[in-house]
């Protein structure tokens, strides 16, 4: 996983609430057996007409946001299906940060597992970010969001911060606890009643 440092970019404003993972990647694209190449399907049904031409009124097709690494969106982003393809598509398209007032739980986890930083902010801060004309800078180390007219901090679970900054392999970290896992298994296998 690519370590996360500081990201500075224009933000893509997706002004919608309750964006579900079916919209982020429609189901017809879940059949791939690899993690790459999903960027072309990101928000597919909102991004393209039925005949495949890009929809002019959709933000991902707006040249002002080309190369953007930050997605701004409204409450409850990523609700619905657990499909990690949603995170893979965002990453593959180029997004490393998603900012909203809240995220669905499974999606929130899936982001960190793929080097995407989901940032939770208050409603007023989100509104200011939607209104800003400048680029946005996200500093994970300092936990700050900066624009020309805004400088606020955000909170993040220390564990996720470490995983992102160091680009750690989650499984390797857990395997360090192998003896604890083995002990749990032995204790429970021998305890009565058991289900293991």
């Amino acid at each position, binding site marked *: 996983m690519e370590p996360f440092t500081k990201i500075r970019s224009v933000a893509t404003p997706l002004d919608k609430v309750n964006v579900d993972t079916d919209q982020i990647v429609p189901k017809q694209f879940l059949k791939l057996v690899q993690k790459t190449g999903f960027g072309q399907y990101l928000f597919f049904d909102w991004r393209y007409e039925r005949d495949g031409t890009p929809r002019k009124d959709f933000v991902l097709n707006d040249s002002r946001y080309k190369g953007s690494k930050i997605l701004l969106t409204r409450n409850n982003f990523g609700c*619905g299906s657990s499909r990690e393809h949603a995170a893979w598509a965002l990453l593959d398209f180029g997004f490393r940060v998603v900012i909203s007032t809240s995220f669905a739980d499974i999606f929130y986890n899936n982001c960190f597992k793929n080097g995407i930083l989901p940032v939770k902010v208050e409603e007023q801060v989100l509104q200011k970010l939607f209104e800003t004309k400048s680029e946005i800078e996200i500093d994970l180390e300092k936990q700050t969001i900066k624009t020309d007219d805004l400088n606020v901090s955000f909170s993040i679970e220390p*564990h996720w911060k470490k995983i992102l900054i160091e680009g750690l392999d989650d499984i390797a970290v857990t395997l360090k606890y192998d003896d604890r896992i083995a002990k749990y298994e032995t204790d429970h296998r021998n305890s009565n009643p058991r289900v293991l």
Partner: protein
Amino acid sequence: MAKTLFEKIWNSHVVVDEGNGRSLLYVDRHLVHEVTSPQAFDGLRMNKRKVRRRDLTFATMDHNVPTTNRSLPIVDQTSATQVKALERNCKEFGIELFGIDSPDQGIVHVIGPELGITLPGTTIVCGDSHTSTHGAFGALAFGIGTSDVEHVLATQCIWIEKPKTFEIRVEGKRKNPHSVTAKDIILSIIKKIGTAGGTGTTFEYRGEAISELSMEQRMTICNMSIEGGARAGLIAPDEKTFDYLRGRRYVPDNYEKLVEYWRENLMTDSNARFDKSFALHVDDIAPQVSWGTNPAMTVDVTGRVPFPDEYAHGNPEEEKAAAKALQYMGLKPGTLVTEIELNRIFIGSCTNSRLEDLIEASKVVKGRKVSPKVRAMIVPGSQHVKKEAEKLGLDAVFKDAGFEWRESGCSMCLGMNPDILAAGERCASTSNRNFEGRQGAGGRTHLVSPVMAAAAAIAGHFVDVREMDLN
């Protein structure tokens, strides 16, 4: 100290407590399907890792499988690739697979309980958000992404932030249990708390109306916990739970001993505190019909399609979303729900495809004909459900009425297989999500119970099933 059921299950599965709310939990059962697992197995291969507990891991294929003639090869090459990848992965890593030709094949959340893999007091995960279904047995069960699938395969554990507890009380006894169903109860709850109402929490459903439900009805309720934003939903196990599981194939040999323990321990202590609470009374619940593009956009069958401001209660973002939903759904505010006409009917999905669902729907259908304007389909949740239903002659009831009788799978709930809606088609569906394009690009989904779907199939539009004699 008094504890909730959730806290008891949580505490008994902590392997490592980091002390900051985050713990490494042991996973008792891991269910795997073809769509969210190929990348996880690839990860294991790349890092030369093994599956830690093959004996606690079970796989089936459900999302992609065709529901028509199974003796034919899968036409869609990408679907075939995923199905084959799962076969290969299960063989290579030594995992038990209920494959496409297995008599045990079915939707993962139908076969888990059916085979006795699901047990009270256990932790269960699966790369599918509707894993919450298994909470009906008093199991802490939740959906995970593919990275976590890989993590569980390799370590049999999962890192998770401890969710808050959310009590959902449903009081009273249903006067018309055949027409006001578990589906109507859960849709009513989601309508009230919203699709993010349960974010960061685990629900525990309690109250007389919940105790009174059968196991299959409880599964319908817990299944849609995720639609209320909660990763998991629990119902304390009772004699119905123990009777349902007794004698099933994967239930451990010391089952009666387990039951004794569960009976003593798996409940919320009387003076335990929940972080949040919500209550409603069954007398206030009517058959529900969703009108919009998320499950909270739901009204009583006797109601009208709302105006955006009526739905949004002063929230401008929600008002915009409602206007957009109405446009997508092709509905005019103020329209009576019973005037909404349908082209398609889908009875199936991990929410409502079990034997009882089919029995209830058959009572509505028996001796009647599907409206000539409608194409209607029944997709049983598993091969066992299908066989049991056929023993009762339900297939004949449905086929005589003009329904298609299919093989088991997820089918039109998410349309990954050929069962999809065409753009503009309107469907009464017993599934769980009415998101834009969920059942096919441009398709319009109305979430309802099996009896409401069956009644709509006959009438060609929604009807209040309470007006029918279902006893």
